[in-house]
């Protein structure tokens, strides 16, 4: 695993995904390359146990530094942190992530809402949230929190989403800045 250069985290990207999210994440990570200058925190709903495989496959297929999150792990630019099964992933401070096993949200732990709300709380307008394919309305409340703190919200277009329920719920909040096809999301994140 390449050792990332230590520099201040100026901005953050958070991604929420559920059903169909694995291949969607692969597309985005591949498109990002390895030199993006922000950390990415990902909440992908999963069954307990598949997480290690998920992380390994994403890392090997995309060449990016993908890690399974641990409590109070420092976060670095250019690294991707995946939520472990059965824990919520949170932004603890500007340079640290944390975990919790609070109640499930929308039947999910990890929950996208928890990740997004904690990101909004710490990073305010310096966070971009991305909602991808999924069969769950988790993430909608989080999207509102991101918007209220001045952050940006990107949602995968319904046409390009394998399962539309999650992006649809996000769009219906009226808090969305961009609706993009899956293939265009990586480029948007690099630019913004």
């Amino acid at each position: 695993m390449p050792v990332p250069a230590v520099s201040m985290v100026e901005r953050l990207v958070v991604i929420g995904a559920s059903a169909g999210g694995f291949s969607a994440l692969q597309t985005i990570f591949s498109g990002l390359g390895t030199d993006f200058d922000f950390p990415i925190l990902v909440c992908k709903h999963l069954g307990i146990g598949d997480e290690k495989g998920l992380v390994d496959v994403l890392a090997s297929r995309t060449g990016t530094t993908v890690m399974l999150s641990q409590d109070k792990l420092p976060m670095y630019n250019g690294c991707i942190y995946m939520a472990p099964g059965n824990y919520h992933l949170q932004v603890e401070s500007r340079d640290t992530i944390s975990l919790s096993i609070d109640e499930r949200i929308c039947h999910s732990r990890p929950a996208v809402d928890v990740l997004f709300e904690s990101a909004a709380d710490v990073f305010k307008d310096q966070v971009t949230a991305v909602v991808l394919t999924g069969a769950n309305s988790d993430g909608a409340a989080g999207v509102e929190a991101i918007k209220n703190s001045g952050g940006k919200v990107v949602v995968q277009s319904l046409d390009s989403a394998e399962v539309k329920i999650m992006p649809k719920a996000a769009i219906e909040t009226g808090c969305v800045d961009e609706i993009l096809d899956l293939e265009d999301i990586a480029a948007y994140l690099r630019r913004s």
Partner: protein
Amino acid sequence: MTDDFQDLELQLLMDAVKARYGYEFAHYARASMMRRIRKHMEAAKTDRISDLIPLFIHNKAAFAHFVKDMSVTVTEMFRDPDFFQALRKSIVPLLKTFPFIKIWHAGCATGQEAYSMAIMLDEENLLERCQIYATDFNENSLKIARSGIYPDADLALYQENYSKSGGCKSLDQYCSRGYDSIKFNGRLTEHITFANHNLVSDGVFGEMNLILCRNVLIYFNNELQDRVLKLLIDSLRSRGILCLGRRENIRFSEAAGLLETVDRHQRIFRKKA
């Protein structure tokens, strides 16, 4: 939320709570804490953290509700089955060498972890030689833990975890069923003492052979994690075993130097001699 002064307001609220009720939440991890505070702000229909100060100070019930929220009780039997499997394989043989065994579950919530331990020890013919202490600072949770009564609906998950952990019986054998609930046998309860203990403000527990403190430190910030980790280590006998939660780590803690790793993946450590 108008939050230019969020950190200041948070600190003032924690100071007020401590002065009024003696509860120390100042060093709890921020993200989890903010989730709870936000929930209470919504209920109180306010958008300032500091508005909770008069509410909590004057309204005991409102504060009691907050304390209850702060002590998350999500737990299950044989959570992380492969951890229990590792315990059985690599720690039980060690325990067998002792004439008497003291075990502490710190932050036991509603007690499922302690009953899981008792069942495992029983199957290893060790229970008779064991005293299990299970503590939490949440009196409501302890009440449930002492009763040993859980929803029958949870039994399927517990059984699945238990089997995955290497258990080969039916959990039915350890409990009686009825009225949509299960109740663990007195034979198990006999060896477990449930007690109120606050890891932040109470002292060392003393001379344990094995301590489990899983998924509790995640609710503390680094400074408090370090302090509590030292307390746990101080409560262990020389070469005693400490088990943390699956996604917790001691890497960034000063106290880490006092421990050696037994099983990196399962977060099993041993106190250095």
